[in-house]
């Protein structure tokens, strides 16, 4: 059993007290977390240290302090480990003069795939690029370039996929396609680490997130649990009912209810005691003859959680 939500029981990738600095600039500061089978979202505002952390996970950058282990071994210059890692870097990382097929075939050869042509065709099909495979990558849209990078990362069927902003520049259909691909990989037992700033998409892919703010581990675990752990920020709850004014007035007299506002959608409550509010609301509704139609947290979305985390700096 693990003691921290940042750690998983059976880790594939482990980050132990890792720091990375470039001269005076601290990019990652004392981060400890781990990743296992399934998909984990790595979140953080621009410059938070996500890319640096991902580069350390792939062994492209050495930690200044601490240790990164991939399946129990450090990944830096570890040829055997690279056979099990697929990486989509944030930067372009494409040869514009090659066709999509040539590029993926080349990536397959670099990974030691014995039948690179067949593996490339398969990977191109997985990302939906078969029809455009024989066009030069230089003429691809940003979304197509992203999918080409994903195909290059998948072509040797790695167990661990590390994806730095893989959904950047993709249109909604392409996003849905890639997300379903990542889900399919997750179901096969792959470890997938996705950094993204498209929070709704991360929310669609996974419940488990690791949030990095200013190079430090800001939060980890299930999105709703992270929100519940942020006890210093009042919860926002929306209540839809037939007598908003009566219920609002009754709620204001209770300790734990910080504020009540009313609009067309109903009552918006701010409370530091969500459990307490939940236990009294039914009694108040009966007492004031109010018919409740909805009682729901308003800010357990990833976007709200993320906004709070960044706002705490």
């Amino acid at each position, binding site marked *: 059993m693990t003691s921290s939500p940042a750690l998983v029981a059976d880790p594939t990738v482990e980050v132990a007290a890792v720091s990375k600095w470039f001269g005076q600039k601290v990019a990652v500061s004392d981060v400890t977390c781990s990743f296992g089978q399934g998909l984990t979202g790595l979140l953080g505002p621009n410059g938070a240290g996500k890319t640096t952390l991902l580069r350390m996970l*792939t*062994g*492209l950058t050495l930690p200044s302090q601490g240790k990164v282990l991939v399946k129990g071994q450090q990944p830096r*210059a570890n*040829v*055997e480990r*690279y*056979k099990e*890692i*697929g*990486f989509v*870097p944030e*930067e*372009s*990382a*494409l*040869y*514009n*003069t*090659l066709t999509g097929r*040539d590029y993926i075939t*080349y*990536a*397959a*050869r*670099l*990974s*030691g*795939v*014995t*039948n690179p042509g*067949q*593996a490339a065709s*398969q*990977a191109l*099909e*997985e990302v939906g690029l078969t029809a455009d495979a024989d066009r030069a990558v230089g003429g691809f849209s940003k979304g197509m370039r992203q999918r080409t990078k994903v195909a*290059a*990362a*998948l*072509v*040797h*069927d790695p167990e661990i996929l590390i994806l730095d902003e893989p959904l950047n520049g993709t249109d909604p259909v392409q996003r849905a396609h890639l997300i379903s*691909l990542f889900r*399919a*990989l997750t*179901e*096969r037992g792959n470890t997938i680490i996705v950094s993204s700033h498209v929070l709704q998409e991360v929310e669609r892919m996974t419940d488990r997130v690791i949030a990095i703010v200013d190079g430090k581990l800001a939060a980890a675990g299930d999105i709703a649990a992270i929100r519940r752990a942020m006890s210093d920020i009042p919860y926002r709850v929306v209540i839809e009912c037939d007598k908003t004014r009566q219920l609002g007035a009754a709620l204001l007299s209770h300790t734990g209810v910080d504020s009540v506002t009313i609009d067309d959608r109903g009552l918006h409550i701010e409370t530091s005691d969500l459990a307490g509010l939940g236990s009294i609301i039914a009694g108040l509704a009966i007492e004031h003859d109010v018919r409740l139609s909805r009682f729901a947290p308003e800010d357990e979305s990833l976007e709200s959680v993320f906004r709070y985390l960044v706002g705490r700096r």
Partner: protein
Amino acid sequence: MDDRTGAVFDLGYKPYDGERLGRSGAIRAIVKDGVRRVMGLRRKARKKVYPWGLVVFAVLPATVFIGLAFTLNAFSPEAESPFGGHAEYMGLTGAIVLLFVALAAPELLIPDREEGVLAVYSSRPLTAGDYVLARAGALFAVVASFVLLPNLMMYIGFAALDDRGLGAALLGNLGDLARVLAAMTAYIVGYGAPAMLIATYAKRTGPAAGTYLAVMFGSAAFAEAFQRIDFVGARFGTMLSLLQHPEVVRSWVFDKQQNAAPIAAGFEPWASAVAIAVLGLVTGYLMFRRYRREL
């Protein structure tokens, strides 16, 4: 009976489940990609003009001469060759090697770094040393091909027209082939190493090629100046002549007269061979150090 049939197929992820090769496969792939890139293969026509033009310059004279010798069968080719023998022809191809590597080395190294493509290599089962070795190997393979091809044609052509007969002449002239290989290695390492070193640190191919040519010709001018200066130790300055060391080695292995600055300053020809070897090793080390940070 209802004979309609149907099936639901798995549209889910279909992984590659074949065998995996080791690092050698990756190195071969990088060499092959390098050869293709240097020669402008699968690229626009203008990218092919420079490398193929130089290759034609290197190969065509020998082809025409050997062809004429066979056609006319009226003269002793080695004695009456307008290019002399292998030694002189290596002199011609040496100049072509210089011009070729000026653009080929930057083309091999700079786009990978500047277009962020190194990440493609860094997350694959190969090391920084493998990458450097493979890129250098691509340059060596291409240059060796167009240096060796005309010399092999001459070697076989001369032997075929030799009075001793083809077999005897081929065996009798094996020493020529060894000398060609030695001179070729001196040219490729002596001219290729500085080009690779400059390309390792440069950001753009054009300026890298210009800098390389300026360094090569500048070093020769520098060495000539040192040859004329009269103070203690000035002669060591002539060893800075990057342009002339391969020429010195070529003349040495073919036992020809030479007046390059290091020789005029009193150095033995083997000193140039050592200088080329040191240059190659230092370049390899610096390249490895540079790429170890990124791969």
